[in-house]
């Protein structure tokens, strides 16, 4: 027992959404933050200048709209990743979150933020290789990608799990890779930046659940 009891299963063809206690809480958190991000106005930053008075930096509307859209996409992808019961589907959601994360900061017109987002983009592109490679290896070894099926199969998937975990780490930009990502957080616009952090943390927890289940 990992997820604390199943409430129900919603099959969409061969893609299955499962509402367990764990996934429901994750889903609710992701949806709540998506709504909050839609409602919140970004904070203004007071930047120290070399000469003269401090400057109050405001985010213009066109930049804000772009970033808010990407943040909402990021939130919906996170909510989907909480529920899905298919390894390939989860990997797709993970990459979608990675793309949305770059999109959130790419509208900021500051050089160091753009540099960091470019480096994070490279990491996430490279990380798709172990991610989808591990999915392909699992399919080749067991003949299925469904987590519910894999739970009953009891095959030794240690190598695939390590690869999958590495792919996830690169995609969400944690531990060994986060040098670029922490630099991205210096961009102004708190709710959108918060979405990057929230999505990556929720996805890590969810990945741990998947890796323990299969």
């Amino acid at each position: 027992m990992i997820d604390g009891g199943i409430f129900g299963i919603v099959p969409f063809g061969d893609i299955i959404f499962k509402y367990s206690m764990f996934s429901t809480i994750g889903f609710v958190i992701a949806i709540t933050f998506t709504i909050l991000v839609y409602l919140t106005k970004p904070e203004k930053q007071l930047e120290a200048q070399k000469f003269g008075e401090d400057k109050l930096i405001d985010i213009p509307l066109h930049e804000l709209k772009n970033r808010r859209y990407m943040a909402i996409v990021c939130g919906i992808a996170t909510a989907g990743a909480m529920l899905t019961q298919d390894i390939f589907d989860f990997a797709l959601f993970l990459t979608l979150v990675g793309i949305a994360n770059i999109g959130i900061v790419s509208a900021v017109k500051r050089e160091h933020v753009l540099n960091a987002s470019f480096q994070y983009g490279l990491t996430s592109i490279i990380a798709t290789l172990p991610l989808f490679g591990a999915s392909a290896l699992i399919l080749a070894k067991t003949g299925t990608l469904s987590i519910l099926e894999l739970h009953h199969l009891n095959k030794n998937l240690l190598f695939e799990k390590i690869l999958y975990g590495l792919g996830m780490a690169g995609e969400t930009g944690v531990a060994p890779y986060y040098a670029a990502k922490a630099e991205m957080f210096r961009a102004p616009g708190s709710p959108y930046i918060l979405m990057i952090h929230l999505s990556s943390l929720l996805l890590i927890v969810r990945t741990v659940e998947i890796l323990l289940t299969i």
Partner: protein
Amino acid sequence: MDFNEFFYLINLTVYAFLIGSLLLGLHRKIMAKIQLRPGPPIIQYLLHTLKFYFKEITFPITAGNPLYIFMPILQIIVWLSALILAVKLESSLLIIIGLYVLQKIVEHGCGLSSGSPYGKLGGVRSVFSAAAEIPLFAVVSTVYIVTNSLIISDIVSYQQIHGPLILKLPISAFAFFILLVSKAPNSPFGIVKGKDIVSGYLTEHFGLLAGLIYIGDAIAYFVLLWLFIAIFLGISNIFLALPFMILITFIISIINGLTPLLAPHHSVMLQITIAIVVLLDLLHRVIFL
């Protein structure tokens, strides 16, 4: 829910808040004694919370609402749900870890939404110290491999048969203990609230909002101590766990009183080192046992 359950929940919440804040006060007292000061009374944390609760607030003009006001409320929501899921329902450990991860979101969100440079630095440091979560996941996996379940009631009943897990998984227990140390105030890993950045993410949450965050922190301290005792010592009763909580607080305050605040990169490197050790332990258990 009927009235009995409601009063039980209220009692549990107040109990957790009181015990958490008294333990945090004790922590401060012991630290002061180590540094040869008389120190504040043990109820000081409680008094601080009450003091802040009755203080005026204004929202800074730089703040991004409603995120700014939502964050202290989220802090209480997170730790109340952790309290109910852990102590009352004895549900999955992974959900509690997921809620603990939300604590990082609170720190980050508090810092960023206020628009203050100090808060922002605190938030960025909280992202850096996300490295503290990796040993946690390794601990969860190790516990799962040994007990074959992540439901807390199952883990507790496993320990009633096989003896406490702290003897079987000393490395995991150590990693979890480091987490407790990093959550306590004035800890060597407390780079998020370091005094070099005023109060980190708390800088611009003052008055009533600070009071709310303090309430959340007290409940958080109680829940984390309870979690450690339930998982590694096998005692899930909140009254029987009390002497162990005092003991652990004593050890933590001695550690915190004797160690200086680490620089951010040292703190992160130390936590990553612990993470690697725990991950190696996990790998060893997966392959050989």
